[in-house]
């Protein structure tokens, strides 16, 4: 609406936007400062001495932070790969077909996005113990599928809902085999969805804490577990450095996909992070 902006309404707008921006970045600032601080005690607003010690520690071969990083990347990458493999066909079924019981199937698949992990992981743990999957990377990857897979299905069903199956029929009638049709026709059409969905499924797995803690039993030490341990043991400088490393993939992924990220379907999975 056009209401001519007055000086008052303009400055109100400006101030509230400035406050919003500040609030959005504020919690990350002390974390970043801590990673370069050496003994930063009350009541100093800024550290008296600066140091790279925390970063040296975090990036050294012996501290185990890098091992954790690679392990976390491995777990999230495998969980993402499996989610794509399993989620794309399911997304196709939900996006392209109408069938009896579809609403129930959707409800079943989407339930994990609402029901918190703690509600299911305790039961899973008691079963995993008896089949030897606790304290293993395999077990952790399996439970990570609970939040990542529904997200992948959600994204892919949106992509397939906009995909016209007649392109495939056209290819078949021009002599392409089912495999060739998938490779040359379907895959190129859904690839952007797979990439964006996959990157965010990766982030969903990347941010899991309680699932990893319980099923991994503390033996599968991913980055968030390490971060939690340092944060609760009062090593603020190292916590800061690990925290910065931990948020990096998300920012990189965001920069890669910024233009695809709008609307509800792409964002839906963030409730899980």
């Amino acid at each position, binding site marked *: *609406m056009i209401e001519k902006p007055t000086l008052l309404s303009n400055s109100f707008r400006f101030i509230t936007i400035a406050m919003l*921006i500040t*609030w*959005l970045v504020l*919690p990350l600032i002390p*974390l970043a400062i801590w990673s370069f601080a050496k003994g930063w005690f009350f009541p100093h607003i800024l550290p008296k001495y600066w140091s790279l010690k925390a970063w040296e520690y975090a990036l050294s071969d012996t501290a185990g932070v890098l091992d954790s990083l690679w392990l976390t990347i491995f777990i999230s990458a495998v969980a993402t790969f499996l989610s794509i493999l399993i989620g794309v066909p*399911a997304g196709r*079924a939900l996006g392209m077909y109408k069938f009896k019981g579809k609403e129930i199937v959707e409800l079943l698949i989407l339930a994990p996005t609402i029901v918190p992990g703690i509600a299911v992981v305790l039961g899973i743990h008691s079963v995993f113990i008896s089949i030897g999957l606790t304290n293993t990377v395999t077990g952790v990857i399996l439970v990570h599928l609970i939040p990542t897979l529904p997200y992948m299905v959600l994204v892919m069903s949106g992509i397939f809902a906009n995909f016209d199956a007649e392109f495939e029929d056209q290819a078949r009638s021009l002599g392409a085999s089912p495999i060739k049709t998938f490779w040359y026709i379907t895959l190129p059409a859904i690839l952007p969805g797979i990439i964006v969905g996959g990157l965010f499924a990766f982030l969903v797995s990347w941010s899991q804490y309680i699932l990893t803690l319980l099923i991994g039993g503390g033996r599968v030490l991913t980055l968030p577990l390490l971060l939690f341990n340092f944060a609760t043991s009062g090593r603020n400088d190292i916590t800061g450095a690990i925290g910065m490393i931990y948020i990096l993939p998300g920012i990189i992924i965001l920069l890669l996909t910024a233009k695809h990220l709008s609307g509800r379907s792409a*964002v839906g999975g963030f409730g899980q992070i």
Partner: protein
Amino acid sequence: MSDRTKILLLLAPALSIIIILFFGGLFAGLLRSFNYMPIIGLTEPNFEAYISVFKSKEFYLSFILTFHIAFTSTVISAILAIGSALLLRRNFLGKSVINFLFQINLTVPHLVGAIGILYLFSQSGSFARLAAEWGMIARPAEFPELVFDPYAIGIILQYVWKEIPFIGVIVLANMQSLGEDYESVARSLGANRWQAFRYVLLPLIFPGVLSASVIVFAFTFGAYEIPAILGANYPAALPVLAYRKYTDVDLAARPEAMAMAIVIAILSAVMIFYYLRYTRKKIRG
């Protein structure tokens, strides 16, 4: 191949994973909460775990605290998110910057946000130091307790920080796809700015706000690491309490942990049920 078989084959892997892991986990938890686990010789189900949970004062305190955290965080986040979206939808300069910040926030895990809030609001945190600088307090203990506090202020601050962008992005996209014509119609029919918002824009964006809020409520009700970092020791949030019970040296406490997990699951199920019923009703008109 018939369409039926095709659909079944396409869905089979995903459904198996979800049913075995997710519903299997829920089911195992349910059995365990009734003290039923034939593998270790428990073959006679009973309600002992529930009786002991519902008899304990700590559980009720925990439940109330957790509900307060989830409800307050969701309501504040939703209101501020709508406000932010209103503020930003026509602001071309600030839009790209804030959009980016919104999205960065979305990718930052809650755990990191919780640590950031801890460093900002604890009694020796950044705000306490600013207060000292301005001579408002002399010692950290004089700064109000904003984390580890009984009202869970720190936890709520963290959720608000993280969920304003989550709901905000959804609302903003919603507003942009609606455009401003509906409000223009309302204005030209005699609605003032407030009325156009209250009677036209708000009902139009409400379904989007509601679905985002359901996700936020369920998440904030069931999250572990945030109350574990920022919460008071007693009473602890329900997920923290459940985890403690589960990892208690006394294995007898495990069924109680399971019972709490089931309470959390039931609450989420109720949320989904009412949400679906509401949206269906809206869709049917």
